[in-house]
């Protein structure tokens, strides 16, 4: 994989007088977290392969403010939001794709009222549309017949009712999609949302991510698929807690598709 990633920035695009088809909002996890960066790169490889004219904000991107808002700091959230909106509007961004359901929810639902109106899609929805339009093809290959279970991220599923796009993609891999007993609208949280990712859990008798990992392991999967960098971390930790790292992998949908393409 020595292939060079082509990642233009909005500033570079503007300098060339171009407007990308879609702005890829990388998010903090996708930019800085070692595990999530792999998801970012997998998604970019697919975008490069499908020749999608996209661009990132690069160093001009900043936290959407989601964790601050959920922690109760509306001030910090709105300051972040207004700064980001200024940047996005200056570039006349129309369509945004992001691999983080938290960024997705905030950009899509909470920015419009503050002056940021964009068409916002989650990367699983975007990948699905590339497939539907014939711009991307998937061959099952290495995932053929593999048992894959999908963990619904709360901010993608319940919060925004996106349940089918990730599942459609998994099925395109000719794999066996196995559902957990609690899925879709009944899905159990991984434990990271509402700013929990950044603090210790309150006293209890179990960690939420362990409980959710147990749900996943009941389906005896080979892969637990997610569509959120935070869910990914929580489920990966859960698998470690259960000492199942050798048997079960936690992967983002974008990674599944990139791997299937040998990207």
């Amino acid at each position, binding site marked *: 994989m020595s292939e060079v990633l082509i990642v233009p920035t909005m500033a570079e695009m503007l300098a060339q007088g171009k407007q990308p088809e879609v702005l890829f909002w990388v998010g903090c996890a996708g930019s800085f977290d070692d595990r999530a960066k792999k998801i970012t790169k997998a998604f970019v490889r697919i975008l490069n392969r499908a020749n999608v004219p996209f661009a990132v904000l690069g160093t001009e*991107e*900043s936290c959407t403010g989601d964790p601050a808002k959920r*922690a*109760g700091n509306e001030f910090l959230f709105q300051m972040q939001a207004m700064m980001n909106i200024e940047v996005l509007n200056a570039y006349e961004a129309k369509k945004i794709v992001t691999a983080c359901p938290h960024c997705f929810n905030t950009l899509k639902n909470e920015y419009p009222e503050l002056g940021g109106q964009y068409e916002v899609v989650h990367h699983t929805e975007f990948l699905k549309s590339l497939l539907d339009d014939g711009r991307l093809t998937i061959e099952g290959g290495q995932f053929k017949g593999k048992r894959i279970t999908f963990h619904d991220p709360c901010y993608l599923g319940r919060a925004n009712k996106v349940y089918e796009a990730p599942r459609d993609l998994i099925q395109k891999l000719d794999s066996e999609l196995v559902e957990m007993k609690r899925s879709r609208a009944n899905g159990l949280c991984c434990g990271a949302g509402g700013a929990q990712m*950044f603090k210790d859990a309150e006293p209890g008798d179990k960690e939420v991510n362990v409980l959710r990992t147990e749900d996943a392991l009941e389906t005896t999967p080979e892969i637990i698929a997610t569509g959120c960098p935070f869910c990914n971390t929580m489920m990966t930790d859960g698998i470690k807690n259960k000492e199942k790292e050798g048997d079960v992998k936690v992967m983002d949908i974008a990674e599944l598709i990139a791997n299937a393409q040998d990207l």
Partner: protein
Amino acid sequence: MNYLDNIIFAVLLVLGFGYFFINIKKISRNINLGKAVDRTDNSNIRWKNMAMIALGQSKMVKRPIAGILHIIVYVGFVIINIELLEIIIDGLFGTHRIFSSLGTLYGVLIGSFEILAFLVLVAVTVFWIRRNVIKLKRFINPDLKGFPKNDANYILYFEMVLMTLFLVMNATDVHFQLSNSGNVISQFIAPIFTGISDNSLHLIERTAWWLHISGILIFLNYLYFSKHLHILLAFPNTYFADLNPLGQLDNLEAVTKEVKLMMDPNADPYATPPEGDVHVKFGASDVQDLNWVQLLNAYTCTECGRCTSVCPANQTGKKLSPRKIMMDTRDRLEEVGKNIDTNKGLFIPDNKSLLNDYITPEELWACTSCNACVEECPISISPLSIIIDMRRYLVMEQSAAPMPLNAMMTNVENNGAPWQYNQQDRLNWKNEI
């Protein structure tokens, strides 16, 4: 002498409905202690939601056993109360079964009431068994210690007694049994009373009739003190529910104003605030800081505990219980209401608040904002919105976030990310192997 019955009945009716309306006014006053929030938009969708969720019970059947039994009790309640009209006319004018002139139709009507009454008895008994014998987890949860636990059982006993009285009343009505039309269930109860003189039968029938209508009036007035208020408030509650995607939290307007001012290069930082500019409290520490829909939510909650049973924090042994958030909000609102009643319409500060005295920060910080509770509620209550408003108070008014969250927020403020990375390194991943 003949008119004594009618007069007693009329007095009973006026007292029953009168006291009920006094309490309804109190509830309405308490709900209006909440802040304004506009829920007048999209009336078509709102009516539809009310029809589907409250009238149609669409979310109840998500748990089929409880859902179907609940529908039986609900349909029974609504339909059998048509009979109430006849009882009221009979009671006021001294007639007996005024609608029996409808002939066959009357038989069909009463017959279906009898079947429903029987089904309600069965359903209510199963409910009682689920609570007291099987002891389903959500019904023995510590939230329900004391009155809330008894309340649930009282309601079941009320329904058992009312349905039994209705059937006994029909079974001991000699004319009704002789006409043999509509006595689908009561004909099997009637044999119990064989050998009793017609006079005694009449006495039993009259007693059952009076107890039945008195029971209904008492039950009506019990609603105010009980979780059973949901039979009325589920309708406005589903109508006024938030229509936005569950993930969308409201943006505080007061904050928007201040942030815009902060970001305006032409704003004068030393300008004196305009006259009459009072400090707006950010977030909620007490019931008056919540909006009226959140307070309506609290009165509507029927304490079924579906929310708590799906809450990830609660399932992993944390103190948070979304049901308790709603119960606490109602208890505090009742306390504030009583304070206003005793102080002639004015709230005298009592050094208590919803925060700390009822809901602790530990409960609030355990929430993952996953919306499972909101999704699960059969009547569109949002415990999450109250949790978030109380977090806002803790953070923006008291700077009382847990330390790691303060660190996260400092990072967002300084580096544009929740971790301590430099914003200039945001695109480094592109060149890393």
